[in-house]
């Protein structure tokens, strides 16, 4: 299935491609490796750019979320101080990770929970499957979780005869359509209301035959469909947004109440969590519970947040298992220049502002982690050669919105340089991906408002300058800087300078 021309950095195409033989509902199917699937980025991007419906769906959705986020972030007077604190807390977590994980384990255990350690996806899936089978059930309910998407837990459970029912509305849509998520927060962002209605009518089994495409009706259909499952489920599986080392408290942030159902009603709860999800103290939650909702759904606070500490006798699940997942995270940690990718709290603000993501969509990245954060995290987690670091224009918008200040453009530049040094991405291959990204973003450049957002390229360049001079540009600029230095660009774009000047008048 791989259509790439034998370049060393291409994905091997061990999964369906977005433009290959879609089913009647257009799902891309479930790949073998959730971090590495589909066509190469340029091919997938080309197919996406030719799909008008997809572009409209993405354009509408990202525009909506950008304006919501901007409004609720704008009303927080100490937003920058919160970002500084959030970034520092995550840095502190990484520096003290072994002792904090041991502290978390001690506290969860003291409160009646059981802690498991999983080196990779297969080990995590094995642990979860054995726990579920011990409960003699063949169906579990699931809360939306990136960690379980990353390890392909649902597919692993299916092989053991266990049905994992996704209960988040968007995850349900993706699951019913035999599709892959295309966004970290809103996995079905590539689908519009009419497509969702068609998916429900064809696959849900108990959708009302006269279902319309009014969002409220669609949500009600999901409520009715899942209620019986919630009331009878014996085992639930969740991820975690935060785990507090000094108390053993876990937190899940959600909107619909499906999370509360899963975390509260079944007798047994299994939580799968990446080892970087820690915060040292309970008090640190006050920072992230402000940063996360405003950055992700653009709300002052998400409708529901659940926190639990081990087992509470008589209230909620009486058996609790916590699976701590590595699956490549220690590889990221070993990378001094790139380890801050582990600060990520999966808010997805960087996807929503990215001119490339907005045009090509999540599937083009071939990973459950798409967009700017996916372009750095995916190759770091897998440790494989990758052309994803070239799938960006380095406009810098992702860094500006990141609530924990991950400098994604600088890490992209670093990863590109490394690929070249390793002989990973050949100049031709890299050039092709870079061009695909620029072509996607050219739409942004053609419009005034979009251009202002994207016109932050010079700021990204400043990040790699030394003493006011840039010695080496990332490819393909390196062809130019090979024989000359580039002066550091000014701190302000002309647009910004003009706007400021007008404001002062």
């Amino acid at each position, binding site marked *: 299935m791989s259509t790439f021309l034998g370049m060393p950095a291409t994905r091997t195409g061990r999964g369906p491609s977005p433009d290959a033989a879609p089913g009647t509902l257009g799902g891309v199917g479930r790949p073998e490796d959730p971090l590495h699937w589909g066509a190469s980025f340029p091919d997938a991007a080309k197919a996406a750019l030719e799909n008008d419906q997809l572009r409209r769906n993405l354009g509408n959705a990202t525009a*909506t979320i950008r304006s919501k986020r901007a409004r609720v972030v704008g009303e927080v007077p100490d937003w920058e101080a919160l970002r500084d604190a959030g970034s520092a807390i995550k840095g502190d977590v990484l520096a003290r990770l072994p002792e904090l994980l041991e502290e978390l384990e001690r506290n969860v255990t003291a409160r009646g929970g059981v802690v498991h350690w999983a080196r990779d996806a297969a080990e995590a899936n094995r642990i979860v499957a054995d726990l579920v089978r011990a409960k003699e059930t063949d169906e579990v309910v699931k809360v939306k979780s990136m960690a379980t998407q990353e390890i392909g837990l649902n597919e692993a459970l299916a092989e053991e005869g266990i049905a994992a029912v996704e209960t988040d509305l968007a995850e349900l849509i993706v699951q019913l359509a035999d599709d892959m998520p295309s966004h970290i927060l809103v996995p079905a962002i590539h689908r519009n209301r009419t497509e969702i209605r068609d998916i429900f009518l064809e696959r849900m089994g108990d959708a009302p035959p006269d279902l319309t495409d009014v969002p409220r009706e669609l949500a009600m259909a999901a409520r009715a469909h899942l209620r019986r499952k919630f009331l009878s489920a014996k085992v639930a599986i969740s991820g975690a947004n935060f785990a507090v080392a000094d108390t053993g408290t876990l937190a899940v942030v959600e909107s619909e*109440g499906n999370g509360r*159902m899963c975390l509260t*009603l079944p007798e047994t709860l299994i939580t799968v969590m990446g080892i970087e999800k820690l915060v040292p103290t309970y008090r640190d939650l006050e920072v992230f519970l402000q940063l996360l909702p405003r950055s992700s759904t653009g709300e002052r*606070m998400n409708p529901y947040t659940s*926190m639990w500490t081990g087992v509470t006798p008589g209230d909620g699940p009486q058996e609790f298992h916590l699976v701590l997942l590595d699956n490549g995270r220690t590889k990221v940690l070993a990378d001094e220049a790139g380890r801050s990718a582990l600060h990520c709290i999966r808010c997805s603000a960087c996807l929503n502002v990215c001119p490339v993501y907005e045009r090509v969509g999540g599937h083009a990245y071939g990973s459950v982690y798409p967009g700017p954060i996916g372009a750095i995290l995916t190759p770091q987690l897998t440790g494989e050669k990758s052309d994803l670091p070239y799938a960006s224009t380095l406009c810098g918008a992702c860094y500006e919105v990141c609530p924990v200040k991950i400098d994604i453009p600088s890490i992209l530049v670093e990863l590109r340089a490394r690929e070249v040094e390793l002989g990973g991405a050949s100049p031709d291959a890299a050039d092709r991906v870079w061009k695909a990204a620029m072509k996607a973003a050219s739409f942004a450049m053609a419009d005034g408002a979009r251009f202002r957002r994207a016109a932050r390229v010079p700021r990204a360049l400043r990040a790699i300058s030394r003493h006011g001079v840039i010695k080496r540009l990332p490819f393909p600029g390196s062809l130019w800087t090979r024989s000359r230095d580039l002066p550091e660009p000014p701190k302000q774009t002309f647009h910004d300078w003009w706007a400021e000047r007008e404001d002062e008048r």
Partner: protein
Amino acid sequence: MSDARTEMLSRIRTALGTSTPEATSVPREYRAAGEHAAGSAEVLEVLVDRLVDYKAHVHQVAAADLPGLLAELLGPGSVVVPPGIDAAWLAGLAEVEVRTDSREAPLSAVELDGIDAVVTAARVAVAETGTIVLDGEPDQGRRAISLVPDVHVCVVRTDQVVQTVPEAVRLLDADPGRPLTWISGPSATSDIELDRVEGVHGPRTLHVALVS
């Protein structure tokens, strides 16, 4: 197979190696508290604004008028209450079947699904985010009771309303082991074209009685 725990901790230590960043102190220049006192008129005004924005129904009443309000909201039907609820609140109820749920004598999820409404107290409320926090104490009950019935009436005393998230977290930090539910409006989803729709799996109607 070597022990996963040992190997993961060893991988982490190796990854950090000699380049381990010094554990630095975290800058906490953000607001630890708002400029207005808990329960002040300014704080209450913000809370009401936020709750209404998220489609919750807000009722500001004097303590003496609470039983009347609850009678009006609950109407004929069934209601579940936690064991430690103030009995005086329910004094005005007529034609309402009242079931009590507790950790010792819990109703099943199916039983809760057959009940129309739930009345609980709250632990703390955050004005700036329009959030109410329940901590599972006897006046708030098990987490399931405020989840399964379709109508949640939450009684919040005005002196429980703080302005900012950090003020609430510091208060909750006194009992970090309690199971918490943070509620900001009725259940909602933005999964269809990022358009917010109220009412999915949690209670579709949230009434907040702000009692002075």
